[in-house]
């Protein structure tokens, strides 16, 4: 379980997160939505300890993550952009992370699952964007962590691989993992998310299920509900909203 208490962060004078308080439970997929620059990535990076918050605290299973690094062995992270050392091969990368983590890993299952048998000994720089993204996903999953964080995982993946990754997320949820997902693909949210957390200008604007989100906005699908949420916040600029055809 992840507890976030009054988390605040600003870059220079620009506040990115404004006292966010949030509780994430095991066995659920949380989708983080919000326009660009709303603080999604900063929030995720704060949980990972990549970004250091100005105020507030993050507690993972009763353990404060401040000045702590051991808790990261319980997190699997799939970043947005996959860039690896040029001269390593895929297997060397896995060996290296296993060496660092010192826990058992089942990367072989995932290599077979994502059909990466042929890429084993290829230098990572020669792999396509989508393949690198799969390698990234395997890195997040192979240690069987309690918490999984996916930052726009669908970017660059072909439809089949995307489907497979989504299936994996569902399976991991069944195993009782806490899954955090940021995405701009709303169908992914509708399919997977148990709860939607809508961030806007560094604040949680909405937290609830997809159904609740749609209902509170008086709309009939998620896309329109999100659009309405966004438009409502643009108070001064009056954009004409054409009637649904």
């Amino acid at each position, binding site marked *: 379980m992840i507890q976030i208490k009054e988390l605040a962060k600003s*870059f220079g004078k620009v506040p990115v997160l404004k006292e966010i308080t949030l509780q994430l439970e095991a066995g659920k997929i949380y989708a983080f939505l919000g326009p660009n620059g709303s603080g999604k990535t900063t929030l995720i*990076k704060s949980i*990972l*300890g*990549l*970004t*250091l918050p100005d105020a507030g605290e993050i507690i993972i299973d009763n353990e404060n993550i401040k000045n702590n*690094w*051991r*808790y*990261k*062995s319980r*997190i699997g*992270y799939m*970043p947005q*952009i*996959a*860039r*690896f*050392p*040029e*001269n*390593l091969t895929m297997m060397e990368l896995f060996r*290296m*992370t296993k*060496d*660092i*983590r010192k826990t058992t890993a089942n990367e072989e299952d995932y290599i077979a699952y994502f059909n990466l048998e042929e890429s084993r000994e290829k230098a990572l720089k020669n792999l396509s964007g989508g393949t690198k993204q799969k390698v990234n996903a395997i*890195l997040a999953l192979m240690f069987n962590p309690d918490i999984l964080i996916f930052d726009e995982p669908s970017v660059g993946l072909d439809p089949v691989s995307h489907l497979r990754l989504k299936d994996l997320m569902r399976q991991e949820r069944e195993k009782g993992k806490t899954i955090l997902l940021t995405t701009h693909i709303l169908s992914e949210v509708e399919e997977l998310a148990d709860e939607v957390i809508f961030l806007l200008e560094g604040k949680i604007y909405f937290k609830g299920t997809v159904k609740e989100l749609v209902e509170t906005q008086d709309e009939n699908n998620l896309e329109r509900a999100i659009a309405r949420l966004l438009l409502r916040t643009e108070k001064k600029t009056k954009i004409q909203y054409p009637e649904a055809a």
Partner: protein
Amino acid sequence: MNALFKIIKYSFYDTLRSWWALFYGLFFLVITTTLLYFSGDFNKALVSLLNLVLLLVPLISTVFGVMYSYNSREFTELLLAQPLKRSHLFLGQYLGLTLSLVLSISLGLGAAFLLHAGSVAESGQLGMLILCGSLLTAIFTGIAFLVSVLFEDRIKGFGIAILVWLFSAVIYDGLFLAFLVMFNDYPLEKATIGIALFNPIDLSRIMILLRLETAALLGYTGAVFNKFFGTVPGMLFSFSALLLWIFIPLLVFLKKVQRKDF
């Protein structure tokens, strides 16, 4: 095995396997062999080599350091998400890169020397050159890492790092000379030694030159230098100065990186 050593090991192998490190080592091998073979005189060859090492090693270390630091940014983020201490990760990257560069120089210079089959006295002088080259590598890689963490923008960081190199390799000497000419009427021996201590490249140059016969050409200055740098305390002092040049930028780098947002 400690996490720090694992990081050192991987960044060491990663750099060593790129063509650059190999090319770097081969370059020194070829140049040293050529100089030794054609000049016929070890002393002359070593002086040419010295100038080359003092100019190129800082430059290459700076460029490598900055490139490595900026290019491994995303991968560093990935590693930061692993259960690792930040200080271990960054110190490991620094040591891995420095070690592979040092290995390239040492092998390049050393192999050429073995081919040439030099005497014991000569190998001492070459050893000094390799030692200074290694220290300069450690210094300028550290400065490059520090610059890359201070400047988010790659182009800016690259430019500043090159400026630092240009300053210590070229401009500093110019200013030094201007200073000597301007204050010609005053006794400058002590001041000269002091100023030399503030530039790792100059310091290395003096430390090596004094061990060669060429030192006689330095005249009175050489005698003053010899009186200071030639003694054991003077040697220890200049080595400490070089070590400070390694540790200070490195410590500032590690401190900055501890508070940095990725």
